[in-house]
């Protein structure tokens, strides 16, 4: 499908702003419900987008999420300005976390965010540059046979 037939929405994220944290994934969930996406896919998207959003709130200065929906797939791209990730393989391991005590107090820092994004999505790409920032590209296919 042509991109102009898709639905695109951009969101901004402010690092450290826990009061609004999670609102992007809520909005994405509402859009998907309105359009009639299967609820099991919505659940996976909600979890992945929430984890991605939270990582930006917790670790970056600021960032952007773009949400692109067409009749084949859902694509969520994030890019942030922040410290970047030194060792991506390590960050992808379950249980690895550099969360502060305050963050752990709030229930974060289990080191499950990135692994969960990968687990729940059909395609997952992560790139990062130290001192610059981190980019994610997360794809979900609406029909499982379209999986590549």
């Amino acid at each position, binding site marked *: *499908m042509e991109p102009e*037939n*898709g*639905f695109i929405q951009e969101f901004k994220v402010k690092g450290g702003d826990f009061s609004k*944290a*999670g*609102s992007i*994934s*809520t909005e994405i*969930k509402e*859009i998907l*419900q*309105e*359009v*009639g*996406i299967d*609820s099991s896919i*919505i*659940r996976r998207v*909600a979890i992945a987008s*929430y984890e991605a959003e*939270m990582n930006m709130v917790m670790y970056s200065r600021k960032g952007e999420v773009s949400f692109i*929906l*067409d*009749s084949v797939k859902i694509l969520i791209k994030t890019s942030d300005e922040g410290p970047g990730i030194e060792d991506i393989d390590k960050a992808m391991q379950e249980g690895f976390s550099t969360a502060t005590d305050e963050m752990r107090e709030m*229930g974060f820092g289990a080191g499950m965010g990135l692994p969960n994004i990968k687990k729940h999505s059909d395609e997952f790409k992560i790139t990062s540059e130290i001192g610059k920032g981190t980019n994610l590209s997360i794809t979900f296919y*609406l029909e499982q046979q379209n999986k590549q």
Partner: protein
Amino acid sequence: MNQYYHSIRIDEDKCDGRMKCMRICPTQAIRVRNGKAKIIEEKCIDCGECITACPNQAIIPQTDPFGELSRFKYTIAIPSPSLYAQFGREILPEKILAGLQSVGFNEAFDLALTCGEVSFAIQEYLRDYDGPKPLISNACPTVVRLIQVRYPGLIENLIPIDTPREISSRALKKQKSKEIGLDPKDIGTFYITPCPAKMISIKQPAEKGKSHLDGALSIADIYGPLLSAMEKMEKGNYRKSLESICILGIGWAISGGICQTLRIKNSLVTSGLSEILKVFDDIEKGKLRNIDFIEAYSCHQGCVGGSLTVENLYISYNKILKLINTLEFEKIKACPDIREVRKLYEQNYFFMNGKIESRPLKPLDDNIAIAIKKKKEKEALYESLPKIDCGVCGSPTCLAFAEDSVRGEVNITDCILRYPEKIKALTKNKSFTAFSSKRDKSTAAREADKKGRKHET
């Protein structure tokens, strides 16, 4: 035939389209079309807010009339513990149960006892539970519907333990048919309800099975006859009738009652739909992962705030609280035996039969590509609207109007601010002109005067 049963009905003859229901509806399930309120079946969760908001009593709760009792050879009243909070402080459950018998039931059952058992069962379930948290109580049918419709992702958080009203009805039918030798079909169990919402859990249970209850009578309907029946009765011994009250069960009448009497540490209590929406949004974002159990009631202060209750909700809330305090102080523990409850728990006695399924809202279109197109149209249309949510178009907000428009249910010219000609058409409407002529100059002057004075002080 409608797909969804609802416990409220709009009387079109009484409705004059004043939109109070539409503005108050927490799920935006009401529209006003051609001067009459209409309920969108799939969006309504039967909270009953509109019943109280309607100035014309045009929204009518659909509880059962007293005559329903005659369908059965033997009838049992099962009153919501909130009924116990409707009368003077010296009137205790024992007397209320006796009163119910004298208004026409063969028997009245103290549901607080089963509530106590279910409290213990919840405690058992929480102890070994390691699924998604927090667990959410399912006592309020409106909350269950809300989750089915708006938060399908939270269905697995609903506690799978059945409600006391269902469990006791099931048990009573079995026990009574043995005792008096009647077919269970001839035994009618009736919930005495503080809200119409319980009707939906009877007529169309969330878990697809069949309810064990045969109907529900409104507290408001039964209040008068019950009060006069009790006035004729002798005064009982206060202390003695205190001793039969189950402290764990009585708490089910008010928000927080379950958690308080069970002393669940990591729990949270919320009541009132607007508050619940905030809490559920937070659960979805994963913010409340370290809470074990949430008590949520659609009505403020819990079931004592139900739309079919009689007493002021804060007074009745306090009455239950004081009763709990008295029982605690007197060390009265007329509660079910926890060992018995554990035995029953092991036999799955408390668990719900079916599974609760989601009931997602109708998408903008069944075809995803078209739905996406409509979504874009909706957003574009919304951008062109005044965004002041005046509601005159008959949709509760500008966003809802945009949605109604792409669904083909309204015409864009219905927006009075984009199409001022619409105001002219509206002022031709009878009720509007009648109102403006009634408000003569002197009232207008008086009002202006009042306002002026207010500013001075």
